[in-house]
């Protein structure tokens, strides 16, 4: 039996409480919505039915295809946030890292660097005046 059972724990349902929720980074900036969760066996190997399994990562991006249309994009294309980065679970899921440290935010950075930051005023703080 697992350690969690003996420690304080909170029971939730994945779809009800995690999937499709907003992920915020350490300073509260939005990162993504949770598209799916990866689960692995006790030592990180493939899940064996009936044996201990745990959530390994929050998935975003192409992994949504499974829930939208069925089918399975190859794991190499999943955009992952390790579960160890997850700090809090509430109506949002809060991370302990900055979003710039995550691989999966590349499209935001790309649009920012290639488009938005190049338009005059793109760095202007609208609340400052």
């Amino acid at each position, binding site marked *: 039996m697992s350690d969690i059972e003996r420690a304080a724990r909170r029971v939730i349902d994945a779809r009800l409480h995690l999937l499709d929720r907003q992920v915020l980074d350490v300073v509260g900036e*939005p*990162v993504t919505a949770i598209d799916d969760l990866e689960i692995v066996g006790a030592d990180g190997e493939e899940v064996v039915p009936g044996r201990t399994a745990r959530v390994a990562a929050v998935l975003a991006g192409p992994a949504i295809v499974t829930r939208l249309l069925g089918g399975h994009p190859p794991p190499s294309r999943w955009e992952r946030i390790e579960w160890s980065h997850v700090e809090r679970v509430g*109506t*949002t899921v809060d991370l302990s890292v900055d979003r710039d440290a995550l691989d999966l935010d590349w499209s*935001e950075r790309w*649009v920012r660097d290639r*488009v938005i930051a190049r338009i005059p*005023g793109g*760095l*202007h703080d609208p609340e400052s005046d």
Partner: protein
Amino acid sequence: MKRLLGVALGILTAIGGFVDIGDLVTNAVVGSRFGLSLVWVVVVGVVGICLFAEMSGRVAAVSGRATFEIIRERLGPRMAGANLVASFAINLLTLTAEVGGIALALHLASSVEPRLWIVVAAAAVWLVLWRVKFSIMENVAGLLGLLLVGFGVALFLLGPDWGDLLAQAASIGQPPGGQSMGSYWFYAVALFGAAMTPYEVFFFSSGAVEEKWTAKDLSQNRLNVLTGFPLGGLLSVAIAACAAVVLMPQSIEVSSLSQIVLPVAQAGGTLLLAVVILGIVAATFGAALETALSSGYTVAQYLGWSWGKFRRPAKAARFHLTMIVALLIAVGILMTSVDPIAVTEMSVVFSAVALPLTYVPILVVANDPEYMGEHVSGKVANALGSVYLVIVLVAALAAIPLMIATGAGSA
């Protein structure tokens, strides 16, 4: 004193922000064809939008989650995705109609080619989105939109037979001679859609997050909604009444913005006309801002991107890019010289069709103590909410069949 000013400002903004090109056109068309016999729909629509906006504002303020995040959480990615596609398309139609409306109003004031104004209007909208502080944007557009009160003034100056107007308003379900029952109900749905456009809710709830509402704001905004929207509804009725008094007796059917202002000119001359045209420019400009923002809000919230005008554009890059793309598409559509009035009529009908997909999740989450704590909906809100659930569903189901059967109200 400062508090009082804040409340007044909020209410005034809500009045001015309620009327957009959809309300203007639909009310004038309805007034010229059906007199005031559809006023009851405006009443139903205003109560509905009050209820709906109050719920979504409360959910956003208490949970910090804006409407489209909630829609995805509750409906799942598939149904929420379908809602996103529909809402985005309708939003785009409405944005197109609003930008076209600004151009038409400026054309009215200047006779300069509307195509030129389309580009100017879209550029101005973008500049405000890019640069101006949220609260300033909201207040200026709302206050100038208040000039539409000119329609109310015009109605009094026209000195209509009030008894006759009241009798018209009381003839629910009885279109005046020569108008078919099918068209009557088609326009009933259109008016309902114009009052309860989903973008108002996306904008309202996201605005609550943008402005980081506190418990204090919550009660103040309830007050704003509950007084501002009904007063905005009165503006809508005034527009319809002006058309009913001046245009209906001459069997003028409204098909353009220039006809909507004729009663105002007749009643108040060039001065009042100028005031109202300025009001139309402001109201459509404000609504163009709201719809452009809503297109960004919906996509960003569904996908979990960072969004919001309170962030620097570079901190919400994809959100800003979405709005730019939406504006460019709107300009593109208008450049095909499609009639903005026709686009408007389409957008209000489809608003009614898509409404349930946005309404149901909000109704549900407003009752969830995990999100709302002590602020869950009360008994009255739920009873009314359930009544409106039925109305919203009926309107959504009836819209398309009515549109086909009546040739979009032309029969």
